[in-house]
């Protein structure tokens, strides 16, 4: 298969871009922030995205979805990176759906997927317990209680945690705190009385939550995947998450770069366009090349997800490490090349650096994935 988009994918890309540019340009994010919105996204816009079919892209046809694959959803995520549009696409439609299609029983899928596809049910992944992304470090306990389990512990940095209808929670059913074995996943209704949610805003008005679970009683049918072997589901989910974040980072980097390139061609100092200075030209040329590389690997990663490639962990970490590095460099250079105006809140370019830092950090940053990549390659 060649590394180019087919006609259908190009059409999706165009329609996603048109929709987002019209309905959710960058001013949309600014409005959300300035209006003190607490959800971190607009429910009206979300229902329009559902009408576009985006919430159903990854859902199998038998559960009311479009079954258009990761390559399709990746295109939408990339475009929403360009406009920095906040939405639960990543938490619900990418990671939530992957968790259910990977580990869910038929009953669980029937319960959640049709509603997710319709845009009326949100999922969130509660897997971290400290400031650092470390999915195997799980102290939250799931103790046998009656026929089911009782969950107690604290989860941090749950993306869309306060918006979710259902949480996917990792908890320990055996073993010690840093062991992969003994981690199990549970589907928990977010309005359970034993859950206390502390919502917080991050840098750019996106939101997340810390969640405390105190004797949250759930039934045996809440187990997602096999007991003690939750990592077998969580690994693929986090790989998909890393590649999806990378697609979004690709959009962020491309838009920041194009805006900066435009500025180099219009801003004059010393009587000439600043884009005529070689000191800036070479840096721009390298950024262009780095972004071209990012395009190739994101495409490859989405294809690998669709194929179920056996080296997904290595591929996902390679991609997230590279995209984090490149997008960070590009969004920081974007500010430098804009000069003073780039530092002002009134000007939009700073939003790209903020969004980049968030996407980079959640679910494992450059260093985390570099380390994981080397580990996957046996060193």
């Amino acid at each position, binding site marked *: 298969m060649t590394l*180019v988009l087919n006609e259908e994918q190009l059409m999706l890309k165009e329609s996603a871009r048109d929709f987002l540019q019209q309905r959710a340009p960058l001013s949309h994010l600014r409005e959300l922030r300035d209006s003190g919105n607490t959800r971190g996204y607009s429910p009206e816009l979300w229902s329009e995205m559902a009408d576009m079919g985006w919430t159903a892209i990854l859902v199998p046809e038998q559960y009311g979805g479009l079954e258009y694959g990761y390559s399709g959803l990746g295109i939408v995520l990339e475009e929403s990176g360009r406009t920095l549009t906040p939405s639960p696409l990543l938490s619900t439609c990418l990671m939530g759906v992957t968790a259910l299609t990977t580990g869910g029983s038929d009953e669980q899928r029937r319960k959640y997927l049709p509603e997710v596809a319709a845009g009326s049910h949100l999922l969130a992944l509660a897997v971290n317990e400290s400031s650092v992304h470390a999915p195997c470090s799980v102290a939250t306990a799931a103790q046998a209680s009656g026929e089911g389990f009782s969950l107690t512990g604290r989860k941090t940095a749950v993306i869309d945690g306060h918006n979710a209808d259902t949480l996917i929670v990792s908890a320990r059913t055996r073993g010690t705190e840093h062991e992969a074995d003994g981690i199990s996943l549970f589907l928990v209704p977010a309005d359970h009385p034993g859950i206390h949610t502390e919502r917080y805003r991050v840098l750019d008005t996106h939101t997340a939550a810390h969640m405390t679970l105190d004797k949250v009683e759930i039934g045996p049918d809440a187990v997602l995947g096999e007991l003690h072997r939750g990592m077998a589901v969580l690994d693929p989910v986090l790989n998909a998450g890393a590649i999806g974040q990378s697609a979004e980072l690709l959009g962020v980097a491309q838009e920041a770069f194009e805006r900066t390139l435009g500025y180099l061609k219009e801003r004059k100092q010393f009587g000439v366009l600043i884009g005529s200075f070689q000191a*800036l*030209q070479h840096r721009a040329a390298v950024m262009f090349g780095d972004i071209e*590389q990012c395009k190739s690997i994101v495409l490859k990663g989405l294809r690998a997800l669709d194929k179920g490639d056996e080296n997904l962990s290595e591929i996902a970490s390679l991609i997230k490490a590279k995209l984090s590095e490149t997008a960070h460099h590009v969004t920081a250079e974007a500010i430098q090349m804009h000069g003073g105006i780039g530092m002002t809140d009134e000007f939009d370019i700073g939003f790209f650096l903020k969004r980049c830092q968030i996407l980079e950090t959640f679910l494992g940053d450059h260093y985390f994935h570099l380390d994981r990549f080397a580990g996957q390659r046996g060193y």
Partner: protein
Amino acid sequence: MRELEQFRSDVRAWLEAHCPESMREPYRSEADVCWGGRNWKFQSEDQEIWLRCMAEKGWTAPTWPAQYGGGGLDREHAKILKQEMSRIKARPPIYSFGIAMIGPALLKYGSEELKMQHLPPIVRGEIRWVQGYSEPNAGSDLASLQARADDQGDHYIVNGSKIWTSYGEKGDWMFALIRTDSEAPKHQGISLILFDMQTPGISTRPIQLISGKSPFTETFFENTRMEKNQVVGEPNQGWTIAKYLLTHEREMIGETGNLQSGAELLSHIAVKKLGLDNGRLSNPVLRTDIARFEIDEVCHQLTMERARDETKAGASLGPSASMFKYYGTELNKRRYELLMAVGAQDALIWEGADSNEGELARRWLRSKGNSIEGGTSEIQLNIVAKRILGLPG
């Protein structure tokens, strides 16, 4: 789709039948490369058989039209051939500036006569071509070249010199940029001329590099006769063709890493040399740099693959070739820096059989030239900035 799959299985069967066992392993050293040419001495019978079989199919130049001896394959078929060759780790049957550089320029700009004269021998590996571009005073500013042709009616008399001719003393024919109009602006008085290196009045002198012996020579022209019918395209239009040809050269250099395809992963070498500590390379800082390098290597390879998928078979990558040249050579330099770090004090050894006469140190030094030859990294970035990004000045 079915036709492609049929082609793949035909190719696979054909390679199975025709590629000798000893041609199915990576080059052990540069001495294993087959260059062809009038004076070529095959290092083994297998090397000769492999070149002959591939040339008969036209697969030494898979995308060239069949009437010039090429394979006549389109992009998808050529890609399958390449995949099937790398699947069995088949060596390229020949490494040739004829195929990589002057051939594509002739296909695009040459007269029918020139194509018929020169392309089939290139496909068969019979003529070894060398390049005459740079001069002592025309490096990055190539268009200021001064090797000069005086018009003598049906031929020119040429005086001047060229530098950095790879394998100059081994070349059978040269393609060279010569100033054919001294009055015109510098870009408009240059012609691309082909000539036999045995023509009287041509001499070469080897150049020693920081790494020791080198394949480069200086080439001198003293009242050398060159025929007008060997001018590619129109006289004084050579600069356009030269730039086109350079994109092919850059693409070739951009693949520098791939010449060692099948070469061991850097991390494997590091693990062997330094050992693991709890499953991780014992030096954690070096480990990070190696991981970054290996990631960037994959990024570069996939991006070249994507660019080929987006480009018509045999067509030039255009200014993108500059980007690939930049990344390919910078990566190769990084690879050797890391190999030196991994090799540590042993990597300093310059002589003796254990180090294969200082092979690593010499290769490391040689790699410094990668980002200079074929246009410096800085020139490549200038091209990307101006021709792709449209930046002014």
